């Protein structure tokens, strides 16, 4: 199976075409094809992952001398650092240039095995959920087709063995995101959001395109990820090239993974259907950027000199994002927007984690976050299914009693997100902070702690506004059907247990063993678990919850501060306007390009360049006119006119001879010829 992983993206790709062409004629409008296909992919992914785990265990046993029982735990506890598990690569010719063959293929290692499981699992649950959630939608079939295409593209992305193929997957998931955000394109705000998402990520892709070109030549004309990683670590590539490449690629990551300052598209992307937000804008597509960094870690490691500690661009971007997005989550009234900013903030954790050298922790956070954030989004969808709105302030409240399943799962997700022991978020977030501290990035550890407290507080606000207090909406909300709550419970279970895969203090580091590459990978540190740090983090999270609970549940603290204090009001306004970044992008940059700049270019085109052309045309015509008037008519014609007058009179005479009868002409012709003939005879 490890060699045949190309089947996994192929199944949903075929499903896409099937749904597109025959979906409408099926009893369930094509949903069944999508569910079955993604389910098949899920099974295949699990088999692949199991085989990969088996492979790593075998490799470790071999290093241990293979003597003792190759038990599961035995391999885990063995000296993992020394076993090199080579990734499984399989390629075919894709195209060639200058005789160089460029190959497409699959690269299977721990990272991609983990990703395919996450993608297919979340996608499968979202498919099930959507069958019920999207029922009766105007474009039900298209929705499932797009979901299939997305799943295929995402799998293609994570299985790529080369950057070019990765780029293909990268853009295709962007396309699916565009299609699904704009799913209800009849309303302009939705298509605006879709355009914004696509264009913003495309802006980041400038960096990706340039970065791939730089690294292609830097690493000796190759797109192959393993070769690039080896070249980056081998010291054969100059530092400058690596720095430029890493910076350019980081721009792509910023665009795709919603990092500051290109994060503004992600909250708008909530215009799409909720299952889409869960799948694409929380669990999978937005982590593509994080995945890219994890995949090309040696390039970033060497390029940004991550081992040196202190400060580097990637950690900085991540750190800023963690805080500014978390703060923004406080002023949102739309439940999905709270979750969107939360996603941005959590993606910031991942990028920061990678930036501080905590590779395993960041990837582990990607893994756990996929489950609990998908859970939260699907939960919010379940709520909106009941109250037909996303506005927490005006249409929700008190749903705890009406929707017990949704409430409980949402609460589990929130606690996991807030990082409460022993839920998934606790383990992964704690490891990121640990790594930051151990690798010499103490400042970012503090940032992470603050972010944790903020996260806990805004999630408390969100839970309070949604599930507590009095119901403020219309009608009577009911719990959603089993097809919706089922996936919620599955994800809730995962949000509880997923963290134990890498519960370091208990001596479990399965995730590290399975996922961390041992081949062409920089020497990242594995810091020891620190009890004080874990305690501090948990206390801060609890403090956040406490503060939130105190403020909302008990009505403590300075309410109405924004009305009284001018600075608080200004701060609120700044947040309300999302730091004015949207004004800058949409109003100033895009507005000026679409408006004045484009008009100026068009003006230049029509007036200047075309003006020259037309002027040349008009000029030559005028020159012709002048020649005609002055020379032709006066001089030449002067002579001509004289003769013309004479000719005119002659013509008047000749005109009378024009009888129109052919015979007259013939007679004249004959006469003339005869006369000429006679003349000739006489003269000669």
């Amino acid at each position, binding site marked *: 199976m490890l060699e045949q992983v190309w089947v996994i993206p192929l199944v949903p790709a075929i499903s896409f075409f099937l749904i597109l062409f025959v979906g409408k004629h099926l009893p369930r409008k094509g949903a069944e094809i999508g569910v079955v296909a993604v389910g098949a992919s899920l099974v295949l992914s699990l088999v692949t992952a199991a085989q990969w785990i088996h492979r790593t265990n075998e490799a470790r046993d071999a290093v241990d001398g293979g003597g003792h029982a190759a038990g599961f735990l035995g391999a885990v506890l063995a000296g993992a650092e020394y076993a090199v598990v080579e990734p499984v690569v399989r390629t075919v*010719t*894709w*195209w*060639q*240039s*200058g*005789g160089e063959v460029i190959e497409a293929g699959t690269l299977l290692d721990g990272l991609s095995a983990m990703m395919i499981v996450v993608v297919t699992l979340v996608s499968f649950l979202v498919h099930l959920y959507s069958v019920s959630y999207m029922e009766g939608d105007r474009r039900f079939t298209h929705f499932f087709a797009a979901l299939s295409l997305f799943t295929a593209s995402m799998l293609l992305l994570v299985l790529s063995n080369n950057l*070019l193929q990765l*780029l*293909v997957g*990268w*853009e*295709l998931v962007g*396309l699916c995101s*565009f299609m699904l955000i*704009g799913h209800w*394109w*009849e*309303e*302009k705000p939705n*298509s*605006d959001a879709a*355009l914004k998402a*696509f*264009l913003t990520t*495309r*802006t980041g*892709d*400038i960096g990706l*395109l*340039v970065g*791939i*070109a*730089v690294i*292609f*030549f830097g690493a000796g004309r190759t797109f192959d990820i393993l070769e690039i990683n080896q070249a980056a670590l081998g010291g054969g590539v100059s530092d400058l090239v690596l720095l430029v490449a890493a910076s350019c690629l980081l721009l792509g990551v910023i665009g795709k993974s919603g990092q500051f300052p290109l994060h503004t598209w992600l909250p708008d992307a909530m215009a799409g259907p909720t299952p889409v937000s869960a799948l694409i804008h929380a669990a999978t597509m937005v982590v593509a950027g994080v995945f890219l960094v994890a995949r090309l870690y040696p390039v970033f490691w060497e390029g940004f000199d991550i081992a040196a500690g202190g400060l580097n661009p990637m950690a900085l971007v991540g750190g800023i994002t963690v805080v500014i997005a978390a703060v923004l989550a406080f002023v949102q009234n739309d439940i999905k927007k709270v979750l969107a900013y939360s996603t941005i903030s959590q993606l910031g954790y991942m990028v920061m984690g990678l930036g501080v050298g905590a590779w395993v922790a960041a990837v582990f956070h990607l893994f756990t976050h996929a489950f609990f954030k998908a859970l939260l989004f699907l939960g919010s969808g379940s709520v909106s299914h009941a109250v037909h709105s996303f506005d927490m302030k005006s249409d929700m409240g008190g749903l705890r009693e009406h929707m017990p399943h949704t409430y409980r799962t949402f609460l589990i997700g929130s606690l996991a997100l807030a990082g409460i022991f022993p839920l998934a978020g606790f383990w992964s977030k704690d490891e990121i902070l640990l790594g930051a501290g151990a690798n010499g990035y103490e400042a970012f550890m503090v940032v992470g702690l603050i972010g944790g407290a903020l996260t806990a507080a805004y999630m408390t606000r969100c839970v309070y506004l949604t599930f507590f207090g009095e119901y403020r909406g219309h009608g009577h909300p009911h719990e959603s059907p089993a097809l919706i709550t089922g996936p919620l419970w599955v994800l809730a279970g995962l949000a509880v247990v997923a963290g134990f895969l890498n519960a370091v203090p208990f001596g479990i580091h399965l995730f590290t063993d399975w996922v961390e590459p041992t081949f062409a990978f920089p020497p990242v540190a594995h810091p020891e678990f620190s009890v004080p740090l874990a305690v501090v983090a948990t206390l801060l999270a609890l403090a956040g919850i406490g503060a939130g609970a105190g403020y909302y549940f008990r009505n403590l603290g300075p309410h109405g501060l924004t009305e009284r204090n001018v600075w608080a009001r200004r701060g609120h306004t700044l947040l309300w306007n999302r730091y004015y970044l949207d004004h800058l992008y949409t109003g100033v940059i*895009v507005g000026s*390009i*679409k408006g004045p*700049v*484009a*008009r*100026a*270019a*068009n003006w230049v*085109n029509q007036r200047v*360049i*075309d003006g020259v*052309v037309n002027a040349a*045309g008009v000029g030559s015509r005028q020159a012709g006119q002048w020649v005609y008037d002055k020379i032709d008519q006066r001089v030449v014609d002067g002579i001509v006119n004289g003769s013309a007058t004479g000719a005119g009179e002659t013509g008047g005479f000749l005109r009378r001879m024009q009888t129109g009868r052919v015979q007259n002409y013939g007679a004249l012709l004959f006469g003339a010829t005869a006369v000429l003939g006679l003349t000739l005879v006489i003269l000669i």
Partner: protein
Amino acid sequence: MDGFDSWALTLAVFLPLAGAAVLLLVPRRDETSIKTVALLTTAATFAVGVWILVNFDYGATDELQFVVDRSWIEVINSRYIVGIDGISLPLLVLSMFVSMLCVIYSWNHFPEPHNPKAFLALLLILETGMNGTFVAQDLILFFVFFEVVLLPMYFMIGVWGGPNRQYAAIKFFLFTLFGSALMILGFLALFFLGGQTFSIVELQDTAQGIARNTQLLIFAGLFMGFAIKVPMFPFHTWLPDAHTEAPTVGSVILAAILLKLGTYGFVRIAIPILPEAAVEWAPWIGLLAVIGIIYGALGCLAQRDMKRLIAFSSIAHMGYVMLGIATLTDFGLNAAVFGMVAHGLITGMLFFVAGSVKDRLHTLELSRLGGLLVQAPRMGWILGFCAMASLGLPGLAGFWGEFPAILAAYNPADGLPEEVFRAYMVVAAIGTVFAAGYLLWMLQRAAFGTPKDEFADQAVPDVNGPEWIAWSPLLVLILVLGVYPHLLFRVTDGAVGVALRALGG
């Protein structure tokens, strides 16, 4: 060489002309026969093309194949030399293919003043010119075919065009003629200084003896001829007018094939014969190319007419092709040839859709359009597909013309200023965002939303039979080439190597 081998190319070129002659004999009123004759002719020509595709030796794409060499005009030592290699083959087949699809599309889409007989005859003559240009291996022969294309197109725009057709047609004609005049001067200079021959293959050796400064001048002459046809900034202004006024089929052929005559000229003639001059001029060509990319995109954003917008997008896309050519590397040239084919398919398709929209709604004013997806969902999706392909989405054909060109600009041929080209690369990469911007913006305004009030009650027929037949092969090709670009790259790669041989590349 036996039998059909030596006749294939000649047949490919002159079969349409013969078809046009037959067409003249058919009575004007018998429209069905006229259409049938035209369709059969183009189909037969395309069959020859398929035969060539099948019998082409893919192991030797770097050599001229199916060569015919006969004496033609002995006085000036111009010979009838035709042959194709890996660069010509895709373009030749594309030309035959698109011509056939155009005839199919025309089946029930004749613009005013109707007259299918004249229209189709012009189309067939046009095909002869285009096919001839792609197979000619003699400069005079090339020139003749290059010019043959001009007149039918002139009449097509001037007779069947929009309200401003006279101006557009004359502008197109004069612009191109102006370029041709300089180009023929270049050809003559090559003839007299380069050993009294017009053979492109021979000139690749004999022209190396020409003094360097003279080479630069000759290249400039050829550049003007080709650059106007491409068209490159700032010689592009004929294009939007011609496209806007031309009938749909005219626009399609103009975009799909005619523009490629210019870029093909660079790859086939200018660079192999005058490599040193090419190195000297390449930074300037690159500069004009990237200006064209950004400028075309800005122009697009300012347009209010869908067809004019697509026309401006051609300028941007041909900018990528020219950037690829200017790098003088195998990546760049491969990208350029791929870009030519991809642009032919995609932009041709976009013009088809625009034409059909105009047929139904009688306007292409973007502010009046909207909700195409509601009224004619299939056509709306096709428009979306083409827009995506056009903005260079990986997995569709457009990407392979764009990305390798950007890649090549990072590392241009020896002797070219690396820093300058890297700056071009960044600008070109920024251009991809603009491309996404204007195409999606167009898509949003034309296809998304709901129909405007004036069209709300109007029934808009979805894609009909001839449209499906004409479009689906294009759509499939866009997808197939995008997923598996090796189909095209393996054909062009060898020939590109030959074109660059003189550079030591």
